[in-house]
Structures are given as structure tokens and as C-alpha cells.
């Protein structure tokens, strides 16, 4: 788009706006914003071609802080707005920023349809398992029995498993990362952008006001190694304080095994993000960490596949019709087939 030949390379600063960032001090959103701003200049996309579309919620303030094109829209509809925008302008780099309430609750319908249509956009879901902007009600990803303002006796809702939902909607890129692991988040964003198709990235994000510590078991030093499983293509699923445990498939069931005593890395599940069936099992490693003998929670790219993108097929169909029928002629259209003349 730009004719500039010798423009200085962009930096993270170029993607920051003059607007004061207004998340609560200590909010996980700060880290996510920083990682996105860091990654953006490395992607080789002209700034003016980037559009960030958000819905409503704390996360959805995001566009105001990105010096790109942006729209802070209405609750749950960023996905649908982005669909129309991408269909209209396939050359744009469209980023959807949403939260667990925005994408899974009020906007759940649009989320699944965005995924099945496979628009080439990136969808970042900041999951903090709480409604922050409305001051602390449980969300569709909150754990069972959770005490919140709207559930003083504990939530009776069963939570969504966002990645399983994405797999169910035939997403072509499914990943999970966290606010407290900047490197991993950056790597995940880079891969999400590189993926041609709809990239669904769930980001665990701490709401230190209404749901502080929701993910600390996964993010804090003391427990992280034991409770998380970082996925790398071609590598065995190994975790544990001293990398002493692994995941093996027993039939269709993932089981934890101790390494050593005759069990080696070769016996473990080797990650392959192209494996559709194994990805279905992987996303189901979603045990409530409060329960005994729960499995570790995986992070990384669970699944990636190629499928034609909606906007490309839409453009192709138009091209094909024009090739076979010629460009539309308004006068011919208005005239139609059967005409009579009054003298």
C-alpha cells in the first residue's frame, strides 16, 4: 500500500497511541498489550492495514491503545463486524480482541460461525474467568461453585472449555497462552498471524481486582512447572518440576507417567499440531485443578490446519462469474428480458 521506500523500521512505540491506558494497575491486559505492540512491528504489515476490532468488556478497550485502525464496537459483535470487514477488504490484517464474556456468552454465536467460515483473522480471547467491567459476576468460563456478586451461594453453571468449543466449530488454528509468560505469548501471536485462516488464541489473563490468582497455579513459579504442559511440535509431552513427568496415551486417554524406571521420552505422546484427532484429546485436558489427580493444563498451539478462507472464496466466486458472464451492465439489468414500448 505504501510507496515509502526508506521508511525506518517500525517499533513497538509506533503502535502505541496518545491515549492514557486505563486498565486497573496490575491488570493482565497490560502485558498482553505490550506483547502485541512488540510483535506488530516484526510482522511486516503496514500499520495502516492493521485493524483491531473489539466488543465490550475490559479487554475491548484494547483498540484505543493501538495506533492502527480500530473499532470498539458493541457487546459480542466484534467477530461479526470483523467478518464483514474481512469479506469487504481481504487485504487487511484484522485482529479481534475479546473477552470470555464477550466471545463465549453474548457473542458465542458469532464466535462459532467466524471459526467455521475460517476468515483469515486473528481472534484473541482474554480469558479472566470473570466479568470485570460490570464489577465481578461469574462468566461462562468461571469454575463451578464460584462465589461472585451474582452467585453468593456459588455458581451452578458448568464452564465452557473455549478450545474444545473452537475445535467443535472446526477452527483451523487453536492455541492457548498466558499474560504472565511474555515470550510464549509473543511466539503464539507470531504463529497466529502466520496462520492463513482464523486463528483462535485463548490468553489466560489475571483480573487482579475481581478474580485475582485465577491462573496462578499455571503462572507462578512454585506450581507452574508441575501444572502446565508446553506443547512443541515434534517434542514429547514432558512437564514437572524437574521435567520428570510425561503424558502417554492409554487408548484414547492421556495418562501421566513418571520418567525413568524404564519409561523414556520415546514412550510419550509426541506433539503434532496437524493431528486433528489428538488435538481433540489435547483440548480436553481441562481438569479442574482443584481436583486430585488432575492432568496438567497444556499451552501452545494445539491444532493447525489449512482450509480455504471465506473471503478468498467469496472473491473468487465473483471473479469467476465476471469471467464467464462479463461485468454487470446496469442498463441491461434495468431493461430486463421483456420490454414493451408505449409511443
Amino acid at each position, binding site marked *: *500500500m505504501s510507496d515509502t521506500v526508506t521508511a525506518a523500521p517500525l517499533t513497538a512505540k509506533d503502535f502505541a497511541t496518545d491515549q492514557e491506558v486505563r486498565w486497573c494497575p496490575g491488570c493482565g491486559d497490560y502485558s498482553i498489550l505490550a506483547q502485541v505492540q512488540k510483535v506488530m512491528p516484526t510482522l511486516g504489515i503496514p*500499520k*495502516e492495514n492493521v485493524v483491531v476490532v473489539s466488543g465490550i468488556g475490559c479487554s475491548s478497550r484494547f483498540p484505543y491503545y493501538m495506533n492502527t485502525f480500530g473499532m470498539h464496537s458493541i457487546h459480542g459483535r466484534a467477530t461479526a463486524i470483523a467478518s*464483514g470487514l474481512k*469479506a469487504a477488504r481481504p487485504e487487511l490484517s484484522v485482529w479481534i480482541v475479546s473477552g470470555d464474556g464477550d466471545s463465549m456468552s453474548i457473542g458465542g454465536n458469532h464466535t462459532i460461525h467466524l471459526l467455521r467460515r475460517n476468515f483469515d483473522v486473528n481472534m484473541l480471547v482474554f480469558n479472566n474467568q470473570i466479568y470485570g467491567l460490570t464489577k465481578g459476576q461469574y462468566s461462562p468460563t468461571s469454575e463451578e461453585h464460584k462465589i461472585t456478586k451474582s452467585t453468593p451461594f456459588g455458581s451452578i453453571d458448568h464452564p465452557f472449555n473455549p478450545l474444545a468449543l473452537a475445535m467443535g466449530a472446526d477452527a483451523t488454528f487453536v492455541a492457548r497462552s498466558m499474560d504472565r509468560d511474555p515470550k510464549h505469548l509473543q511466539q503464539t501471536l507470531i504463529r497466529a498471524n502466520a496462520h492463513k485462516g482464523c486463528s483462535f488464541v485463548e490468553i489466560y489473563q489475571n483480573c487482579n481486582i475481581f478474580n485475582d490468582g485465577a491462573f496462578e497455579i499455571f503462572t507462578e513459579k512454585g506450581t507452574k512447572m508441575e501444572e502446565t504442559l508446553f506443547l512443541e511440535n515434534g517434542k514429547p509431552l514432558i512437564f514437572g518440576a524437574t521435567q520428570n513427568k510425561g503424558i502417554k496415551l492409554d487408548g484414547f486417554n492421556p495418562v501421566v507417567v513418571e520418567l525413568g524406571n524404564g519409561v523414556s521420552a520415546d514412550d510419550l505422546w509426541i506433539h503434532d499440531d496437524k493431528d486433528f484427532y489428538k488435538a481433540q484429546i489435547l483440548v480436553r485436558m481441562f481438569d479442574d485443578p482443584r481436583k486430585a489427580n488432575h492432568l496438567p493444563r497444556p499451552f501452545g498451539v494445539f491444532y493447525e490446519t489449512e482450509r480455504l478462507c471465506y473471503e478468498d472464496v467469496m472473491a473468487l466466486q465473483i471473479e469467476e462469474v*465476471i469471467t464467464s458472464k462479463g461485468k454487470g451492465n446496469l442498463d441491461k*439489468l434495468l431493461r430486463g428480458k*421483456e*420490454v414493451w414500448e408505449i409511443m
Partner: protein
Amino acid sequence: MSTTDQILQDVVIKFAGDSGDGMQLTGQQFTNNTALLGIDLATFPDFPAEIRAPIGTLPGVSGFQLHFSSNKVYTPGDIADVLVAMNAAALKVNLKSIKPGGKIIANIDGFDSKNLRLANYPDGINPLEDGSLDSYDLIKIDVTKLTRESLKDFTDLGVKERDRAKNMFVLGFIYWMYNRSLENTIEFLKEKFGKKETILQSNIKVLQAGYNYGDTTETFTTRYKVEKAKMPAGLYRSIMGNQALTYGLIAASEKSGLPIFLGSYPITPASDILHELSKYKSFGVKTFQAEDEIAAITSAIGASYGGLLGITTTSGPGMALKAEAMGLAVMLEIPLVIVNIQRGGPSTGLPTKTEQSDLMQAYYGRNGECPMPVIASSTPSDCFEVAYEACRIALQHMTPVILLSDGYIANGAEPWRFPTSNDLKPINVKFKTSLDEGEEKFMPYKRDEKLVRPWAIPGTAGFEHRIGGLEKQDITGNVSYDADNHQHMVKTRQAKVDKIADHIPLQKMDSGADKGKVLVLGWGSTYGAIKSAVLELQAQGKSVSHAHIRYIRPFPKNLGEIISNFETVLIPEINNGQLVKIIRDEYMVDAKAYNKIMGVPITKGELVDVLKKML
């Protein structure tokens, strides 16, 4: 044997049968045949909400009314001269709308004991036999038997397939009765069944058999002829409302240079616009069948944000779902056309019946102070111009626009003296791509003299900016919760819509003097009925005039003055009184209402009666 030809000026014919009998197709074929002869016409299809209600029952009756004349036609006619009744239910449903002494052409086979029972006739009663129709000119034809007979050589076809052609027999017979050629229908059949030779030949055979039946049966001694109507010189075609609306959108796209993006979710009676637009990929039209009404409008907002001509089409229940997104479009101040083909409400209401009951919804139905222009079409062909105007206003005033049509206009047909592309006013659209003199930084909410903000689309280097549903600071567009700013912005958004009045035509009188006793003020599909009623009374020397409003928000600047020139204003509407409330509110005038809420249009006759009491 010889027949005599009788010249008629005016005929209203109603084709009625079971919804599987093909009455809509029969009606449309006769309509096209009539139009091609230069006869003026108006149609009114009337079908059940169920795709196939139980065969033979009263709710399953599908009708198609056609009014054709050598005079100007404004309505599909209050009452039918001729009824074609394919079964007992069709007769029962329509008997009250046949002129005394009118013709009833009845399919005998549709009056067997089973059909009579399904139509709730008492045991042993057959209206074709009991003399109850003596005051009508009853023509009984055993259509089913004659159809089967004429297809006896088509041994490949089963009974069901043969019977399916019986509407062609009726059409052929009516063609004979009105001195018509079969040509356009044969052409139509060739196009429809081109690859299915047997089906094609059988349909043509039955069509000819129906025609020959009239010709050779000695019962029928009179054929009728309606001469060409005197219409302004030019080229004409037949057009239906939703089709004209589609063409208007495409024309606006061509003239503005912006491709169309239609986000739509199927809903009766608006789906035909989605069907129609999806055919025109050769014009670069992008149609998106969204997952719901909300995604339909928000995807269109996304496309519009990207610089396309964003459109969404729906009917009342869909409008309700789109309301929040309309508010977003008002805040974003981007172009968007929202088409509402109104139907009977509330809730699911009467999906296939017509009503004008969404005017208040269009006018006020959003949270906050949320003004949007509203524009309404009055006849099938008028949908073209109104759609074009809706796009023009949206694009040139950076605003969402609501276009109101209704089921009656959407499915009705009339002759249309179509324009050429050169006749259409250009729609100039300019994206913001450079800073003006004296501008240091792009200001997304800096307005021009029309109070319109600049449109800078993604991909324009140096114009990156953020917009959204939160209140904007004037000029910069940054989020602002400032009290004075909010008041200023609310007033500004209102003033921007009000200012559109400077860019639309003044209200014209449709007929009658500028001053007088009664002004009949209408909007939308009541046009034909008001027009013909008022003309009739004017011919009797009554002081009555007619004005029909296309631009409902804002109103044309001279509307108040027109209203003040009359002693009384009557506002007929197919609702419980909506425009009348707005007019009273706007102009402090004691406007009178005439309301009909029966899912059908107001007739000329009833309006004449109402007006006579006022004059």
C-alpha cells in the same frame, strides 16, 4: 361457432387454489402477458405462511389478484370480476371478494366430497350444485380430467406429474378468454424446463389444451379484450417491489463506485432481496447470509467501515434484533442502509401479510437519543428510486438510513418505465486520503457544512484512528464522558439528520389543490388506494387533495405549510395510528386517523366512504 369480442376497460381477476396448485406462477404469467401488451396493471399475491398447509384446507389457500386496465391502475382492485377457484376452499375464502354477478371459473374436481369436507362445507352441500352461486356467472370446468386427458400420450408421466400441469390448463383458458397469445408463457416454460423435454412438452400441451377448450367448446360465446393503457411514452417492463429495490441498490453501487456488501438473515417477506442480490456477483456484489439478524447488520457495519456500501435487509422481528447495532452505526457515523419489508406484528405476527406497523420502531426504536433518516417506498416500482435515495443519503450524509417497504409492495408488480443509467443522479463519494490546508492531524469527527464527518477507510496511511460506541469528544473522536460534550454531541447528531432536509426535494401534492378542505396524507403502500379514492372524489368536485410522504425523517421542509393549508388532515395507515402521532407531535395539528389492521391493504372503496363523511 363464432364468438364475439367485447371490449372491457377494467378487469380484476383473482387466481385462487391450494398453495400447491401453482396459482402464483399462473398469476405472474398472466401478469407478464398483460404487461407486454401495454395494459396497465397492479398485482397482489396473497399466500399462506405455511409452505404447504394441509392440502385442500382453508388456511392452505393461495391467491394472486391482478387488476388490469386501459386506464391508469393504482391498486390491485377492491373486488374481483373474475375468480378462478381451483378447489372448494379457494371459493369459500374468496367468495366475499367477488363482485355481484362476477364470473367464477371453478375446477369441478376440486369440489369432490373430500375437498368439500376439507373446506368445511356441511355434508351433502356442494356450492357448484346447490344454486347458491346463481347470482354469479358460474363456469364449471373439469380441469383435472381434461388435463389428464390431454396428457394421455405422455405415458412416462405419473398421475401426480400430469395433475401438476393443471394450472397451465387454466392459464390457457384465461388466455383464450382475454384474447391473448401463448407465446411468452411458452418461452418461459422453455427456459424453466429446457432440459426436461417431457415436462416441457406436457406443460405446453396442457396450456394449448386449455386455450383450445375455450376455442372449441360452444359454451363460451364471448371473449374479452382490454386495450392498451394511455401511459407516458417510453420503454416499460414489469417489476415487483423487492426486485426494484434490489435494482435500486445495485444502481447506487454503480453510480457511487462502491461495491455492495449485503449482510442478511432470511426472513419473510424480505428474503427475496437476498436471493435477488446474490445473483448479481457480476456487479461485484458481496452477499453474506449471516448466522442471525445481529450478525447481518454488524457484518454490514464492518464492510461499510471498510469502505463498501453496507446494506442489511430484514422485516420487523429482525429490526428489533438489529436495534443496538443501529445505535452503533449512528455513533460511528458511517453509511449503512437498513431495509425493513414490514409485515404483520408484533412478534412473529402475520409473516406473509402486510402492515405498516414498524414506523414508530424505525423512528424511535433505539436506546438513547438516536436519530436516523427514514424513507418509505409507495409502489413496487417506487422501491427503485427509494432504494437509490436511501443509499445516496447514507453515503453523502454518513449515516445509517432506514428504508421502509412492506409485504404488499414487495410482492406486488406493476409496469415500470425504467430509467437508463444516464438518467440517474450521480452519487459522489470521497474518502479522506489527505489533510486539508490548515489541518495538522486527522480529526475523525470534524464536520463539514452538512455536519458530516470525513470517511477515512483502513489502508489509508496516516489516517489510523479509533472509533466506537462510546460517546465521542467533538472533533477528535476520542472517548469523552464530559457533560457539556455529550449534550453538544446529542444535539449535533440530531442537527445532522435534520439538515438532510436541505438535500431532499420539497413535498409535492400528488393530486388536488394546494389548499382546501381535506388533505389525505399518506406514506408507503397506501399510495394506490388513496390516489384512486381521491381522484374519484375530485372528479365529483370535492375539495380533497393527496400528498404522499417519501421522506419521513426528516420531513420535507414545506410539509408543515402544506398541512396548514387544509381544514382537515386524514392519515390512512395499515396500523393502529403511527404517522398520525408523529404528525400531531411535529406540527401540533389535529390530524385524523383511518386505520385498518387486518393484514391486507386499505381498499379504495372504504377510503371513499370515509372521505365522503368528511367532505
